[in-house]
């Protein structure tokens, strides 16, 4: 199978380039990550992040034939050849397929991604009805892989100012939690021309999410909350 992979090593001082690989895959090499591990066993200089190899840790996000996805849950069968692999767009490249995710995590941290509840905790659990808990479904499952945020043109233009779909999805995760008491503060924190409102609902994020989540819908719900509290 043929691959064309983005290579860049600042330690060598070269410009980035695309390197071609032609590799014979075994029948057990079903996913793109298996193929990359096989390539790496021959060329150990190819650098990428990977861990769980089952789509829950979010390490091996990359741009695969022009679309963001996780290598470990992308079947190789059916990929157009040569398979073109590039680092996630819009973030600085550290080396090869490894990007610097500092800005992505800064935006995540900026939404105060933790439950805020100032009541003294009860002896047992705080109660939450199944319906209230269901509000978190499709939201809490985010794996912070950055496929969505780095597929978003608004993030490409304003990565320092626009929270991005992943961060906003998590903002909604806490706004939607019946146990959280900081709703007003959370909305204030997003009431800004850039942080929330740079989202123009083009839905690249929904298309990119390897977990089938819908950040655009969550962003819409945050916008509704903003409107509701002003009227």
């Amino acid at each position, binding site marked *: 199978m043929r691959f064309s992979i983005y290579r860049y090593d600042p330690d060598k001082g070269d410009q980035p380039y695309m390197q071609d690989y032609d590799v014979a895959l075994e029948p057990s090499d079903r996913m793109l990550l298996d193929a990359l591990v096989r390539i790496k066993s021959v060329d150990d200089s190819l650098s990428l992040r990977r861990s*769980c190899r089952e789509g829950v840790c979010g390490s091996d996000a990359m741009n695969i034939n022009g679309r963001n996805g996780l290598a470990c849950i992308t079947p190789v069968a059916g990929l157009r050849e040569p398979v073109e692999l590039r680092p996630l767009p819009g973030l600085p490249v550290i080396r090869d397929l490894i990007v610097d995710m500092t800005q992505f995590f800064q935006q995540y941290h900026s939404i105060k991604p933790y439950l805020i509840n100032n009541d003294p905790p009860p002896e047992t659990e705080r109660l939450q009805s199944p319906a209230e808990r269901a509000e978190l479904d499709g939201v809490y499952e985010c794996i912070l892989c950055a496929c969505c945020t780095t597929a978003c043109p608004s993030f490409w233009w304003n990565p320092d100012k626009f929270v991005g779909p992943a961060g906003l999805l998590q903002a909604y995760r806490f706004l939607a939690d019946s146990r959280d008491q900081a709703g007003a503060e959370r909305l204030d924190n997003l009431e800004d021309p850039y942080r929330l409102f740079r989202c123009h609902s083009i839905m690249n994020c929904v298309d990119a999410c390897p977990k089938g989540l819908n950040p655009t819908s969550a962003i819409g719900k945050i916008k509704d909350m903003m409107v509701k509290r002003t009227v």
Partner: protein
Amino acid sequence: MAIARRKFDAVIIGAGGAGMRAALQLSEAGLKVAVLSKVFPTRSHTVAAQGGIAAALGNVTEDNWHWHMYDTVKGSDYLGDQDAIEFMCRQANEVVYELEHFGMPFDRLENGKIYQRPFGGQSQNFGGAQATRSCAAADRTGHAMLHTLYQRNVRANTQFFIEWMGLDLIRDEQGDVLGVTALEMETGEVMVLQAKATLFATGGAGRIFHASTNAFINTGDGLGMAARAGIPLEDMEFWQFHPTGVYGVGVLISEAVRGEGGYLLNKDGERFMQRYAPHAKDLASRDVVSRALTTEIKEGRGCGKDADHLLLKLDHLGADVINMRLPGIREIAIKFAQVDPINEPIPVVPTAHYMMGGIPTNFHGQVVAPYKTGPEEVVQGFYAVGECACVSVHGANRLGTNSLLDIIVFGRAAGNRIIEDLKKNPHHKPLPADATDKVLARLARLENQKGGENVAQVGTALRKTMQAHCGVFRFADMLKQGVSRIGEVAERAAQTEIGDKSRVFNTARIEALELDNLVEVALATMVSAEARNESRGAHARDDFPQRDDDKWLKHTLYFSADRRLDYKPVRLKPLTVESFPPKPRVY
């Protein structure tokens, strides 16, 4: 070469559930703590835990911690230390409620309480009816827990060193631990992190096996570092093979599938677990179920054209239950087994999953080792929790959902203990002059090696040897051969060569250093397994099929320097309740 040095009150290696629970305790107490992780914290392997965390909340069926303790002792095949088991089970409710207060999105019952489901080996009333004890967030409990702990650490301003790999422990002449050397992956720089307390929470090492549910990062780094520093490794012959890894791939299919009512079938469509565990059936302990699957395959009742796997049926649960309680399993089955479990059973085989052994500790998380006066002297300044530690609550076999409990209970306990210990020892001890000599020599060897073998090749040899020689059932001749084969692999690993010499994010170098750690774990496992002439929990010897309490009711200690074994007694005395004496273990 001058090596940069930084000082902290505490350094934690590993940012999974155990490391982050400990970090939270320390950060909230105002200590200066550094948490190192090879990966961004939410990518740690806790994220892959599925089925739940055990706690006798009694939200669904009547329950209490003492019953949980009994199940854990029995599950451990009586090798677990009963003081530590009592400590863990007693604290379970409190730590689970605490996680809920931190914001963990548990599933809920109609009355608003935390959802609980049945799991293997859990009973009411000391071996009676099935208990419903596993607190769950769908089948993504580990993900929900790990993200919650990370979030809480963000709130507490914990200082993370992300994409840093611990290299070696620093000990002085008295044997006290004074910190670690570590490698910053992005720059390739080595740094000394000096600490009054060093806590290992480096997780498992399932990557010693060819077929494993474990992540790539699970390479036993903490065990390697400890072993090289002269700390023994305890009970390394006990590895859990999870009954249901996806056939041909190894990805985990949670026991929650059977907890929700799924069951196993052989090629005749028979629910074969009834023959092996008439009472608990598919919810017997994992070692029992894995042996049953292996036996079915060996006796020709496996499924598929090669009769080499079994089927896990859950379609009868219906689409609603599967989508609500097992959505992650459905996703995995569709992606990795190409079956939709709403319609079809999932092909499964027993797959290496969890290391019961590890760095020996007491229930405060302090590392203990034989030194002068006894087998369990505290190693000053050194702590270990989670899968890398052997406290030992799991003994010879861990119950499902007890691992998430283990990491939270002992992560918190170690954090508390460190806070106390630092009040008594508020100063850094001076570092020995040769603190970094060995690790720099190891790195220099790797940089300058010529004509050495490829790391991937040696790694494959290691994993295939472990798989063939140290699996679900173990045979005397295979183990003997295995010891010498793994010894050969160790020699090859000491001569590996990397082509990539870049300083920037050199993953070839990382993998070579990980291989050093895998070798330590594999050697400890094979040598310990070869010596234990009995069957207990997950260690099933073909030539010694019975448990032998007269000779073998004891913990193994493996010393890396001379590959020597020693033993120490099991702590049969709990903290406050009566001991559970060993008795035949039937499910």
